[in-house]
């Protein structure tokens, strides 16, 4: 019985939150990795793009709520998501036209492109703050739980509670759909294939008649969609605050680098590696230890790292990967 209780505790406090967080990171890292492989720079504005997209979604959600439109048991934000994606993608395309295109045409070095993305980051940051402010916003509505602690107890009779919030389930399902769609698009459609060709060898792709402008446009639209979805899911699951979206830039970059920057599969795997390490190392294992080792009552929380140091986990993994395997697990782009 204690073993089952221990498993339930692990599922409740580690597996479920880490899976949801991992899915959000994976979507963010996919955006970074796509921009990297097609446009060839690390996009520092990714976090603020996510914040902007989420801000738009929140505003539309409020509009829907004011009009009395709801999505039944699902959060209204999902209904607002497509509109948010369109607006974010439009903003990214505008940014590309006004800012990035010049550097692409003049073939600026990657580090200059990174610096340019810092400028874009400042502007996006300001836009998000103009739009929605800096305060913490909770915008989830609809049913809160798929399984709550009481139902679980009645269902199983176990003393250890297990809760599954609806936002966590929605995150995982949405992320799964988006990933399947993206991989299908990259591997099966003509445009997706031309994007991969462009990423592998730009000159060869140009020679075979691939339109670079089209590839770039599609990349930005997908990046906008991924950023908006990732940001909205993260905001639904936790809450929206402009500054936290800047901070998750680090775990997102770490995910992309761990998996091999430029490799979509790597981004997904990297996201889950980072999220499980982060949650696992900052979880207080006291409860699980008491279940598993009878007669032992640990003094402290049996927490390997305080939660304040969660970014240290991403960073340490990042450094280990840089030392031992700089191309990442899935052999991303050349070092």
């Amino acid at each position: 019985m204690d073993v089952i209780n221990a498993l339930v505790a692990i599922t409740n406090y580690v597996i479920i939150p880490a899976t949801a967080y991992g899915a959000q990171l994976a979507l963010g890292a996919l955006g970074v990795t796509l921009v990297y492989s097609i446009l060839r720079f690390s996009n520092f504005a990714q976090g603020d793009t996510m914040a902007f997209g989420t801000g738009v979604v929140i505003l539309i959600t409020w509009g829907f709520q004011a009009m009395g439109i709801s999505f039944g048991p699902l959060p209204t934000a999902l209904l607002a998501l497509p509109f948010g994606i369109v607006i974010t993608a439009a903003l990214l395309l505008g940014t590309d036209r006004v800012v990035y295109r010049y550097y692409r045409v003049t073939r600026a070095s990657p580090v200059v492109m990174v610096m340019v993305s810092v400028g874009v980051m400042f502007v996006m940051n300001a836009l998000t703050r103009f739009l929605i402010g800096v305060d913490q916003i909770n915008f989830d509505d609809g049913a809160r739980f798929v399984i709550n602690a009481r139902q679980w107890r009645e269902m199983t009779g176990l003393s250890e509670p297990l809760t599954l919030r609806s936002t966590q389930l929605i995150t995982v399902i949405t992320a799964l759909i988006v990933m399947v769609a993206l991989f299908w698009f990259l591997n099966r459609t003509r445009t997706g294939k031309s994007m991969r060709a462009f990423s592998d060898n730009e000159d060869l792709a140009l020679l075979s008649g691939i339109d670079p402008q089209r590839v770039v446009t599609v990349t930005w639209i997908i990046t906008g969609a991924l950023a908006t979805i990732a940001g909205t899911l993260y905001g639904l699951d936790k809450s929206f605050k402009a500054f936290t979206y800047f901070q998750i830039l680090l775990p997102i970059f770490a995910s992309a680098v761990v998996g091999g920057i430029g490799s979509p599969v790597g981004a997904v795997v990297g996201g889950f590696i980072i999220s499980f390490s982060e949650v696992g190392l900052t979880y207080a294992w006291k409860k699980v230890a008491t279940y598993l080792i009878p007669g032992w009552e640990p003094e402290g929380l049996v927490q390997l790292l305080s939660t304040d140091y969660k970014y240290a986990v991403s960073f340490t993994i990042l450094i280990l990967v840089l030392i031992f395997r700089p191309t990442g697990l899935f052999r991303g782009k050349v070092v």
Partner: protein
Amino acid sequence: MSASRQPGETSALRAPLFFAVLALLLVIEGVTSGWNSALGILNMGLLSAIMALGVNLQWGYAGLFNAGAMGFLALGGIAPVLISMPPTPGAFRAGGMGLIAAFAVAIIALILAAQVWRKLRIRGRGLLVTLILIVGFFAYRGLFDPAVAAIEAINPSAAGNLGGLGLPTLVSWPVGALMAAGAAWLVGKTALGLRSDYLAIATLGIAEILVAILKNEQWLDRGVLNVNGIPRPWPVPYEIDLQNSASFVKMAQGWGMDPVLASTLLVKLAFLVLFLIVVLLLIWASQMALKSPWGRMMRAIRDNEVSAAAMGKNVTRRHLQIFVLGSAVIGLAGAMMISLDGQMTPSSYNPLRYTFLILVMVIIGGSGNNWGAALGGVLIWYLWVKAGDWGPDIMTMIAAPFPDGGLKEHLVDSAAHMRMLVMGVLLLLVLRFSPRGLLPEK
């Protein structure tokens, strides 16, 4: 980048002209808003100039993108706390030895793990290394946790930390630089020599972690409880002492000034002189380095890494060297900033202000030009402060025609974020239309 970095024709009057404009702006500020405000902006501007000089070494001389200036700044800022604060009585006896033992265990475990990984060529060495690290981690925590608990239990409302060594504040400045240099060496060692943007990502991470450490390790710097009353550097007097000194009050009255105002101005002027000396020394040293064979080599590497490597230059080593040097300068600025503020507030470190704004200063001032970086430091700091003042005024004017209510309120509230927009747009404009900045590299 190489094409845009070639020396071009610029008038010799360009730099003096820009500095004259800057001086004029500060004089206007002094006349309209008071000299205290003008000197305050100038002092912080000079500190920003030092940070910009450090970033300029990295970005301007070598093309390295440091996205973690904030971290090195914060790390340098810990030096005044550890060097010039008086020690907390009994704290070292309570937990000092435990802390030293804990860190010794951690370092031994890391070295051992690295040696095993490098020297042993057997199957399962990965497992062995993991085992060493796990055992080392638990031994470290076993020593560290009780020591920290003992230190934090001492007088928690006023201290609860180790305190410092009680040495003069000026000593803490170079120490801050050394601490930042140490951290930079560790980061550079792993991230340099790989693709160029890995350094940016790694520094972004180390900055977040260093600030998290300052926020949470109470035994070190009281965390978010802040350390107050950090002593001022040597020649700078305290306002209250001046106001109590009869000779100073008489002198101030002799000039026809209010003694309180005169004392605040004198304190700011004393800081100004100190900072100015440091800035000028740094510019002189950087200029000498730039003109030396070493400086030419650095620029050759920046402009074409491949050909420099072909000439037998060790690009990664040189990059590590300049990255450490630049971070040391940023650490120095961090220590100076804390002794100017007189307090350590870890929650005030914000990456937009202390990392990305510094990059904006360097790029707008002129990458690779030390005078440009210094100019950018003061000028952009002035704009940043003033944009905060002007933003609400401009916004109120824009919002005036709208009816009172939600929209108007929202517009006026959001004015505070105006300076982000201004900085972003400025950065993009300079990168696009004048990539060499206000004072181009010679």
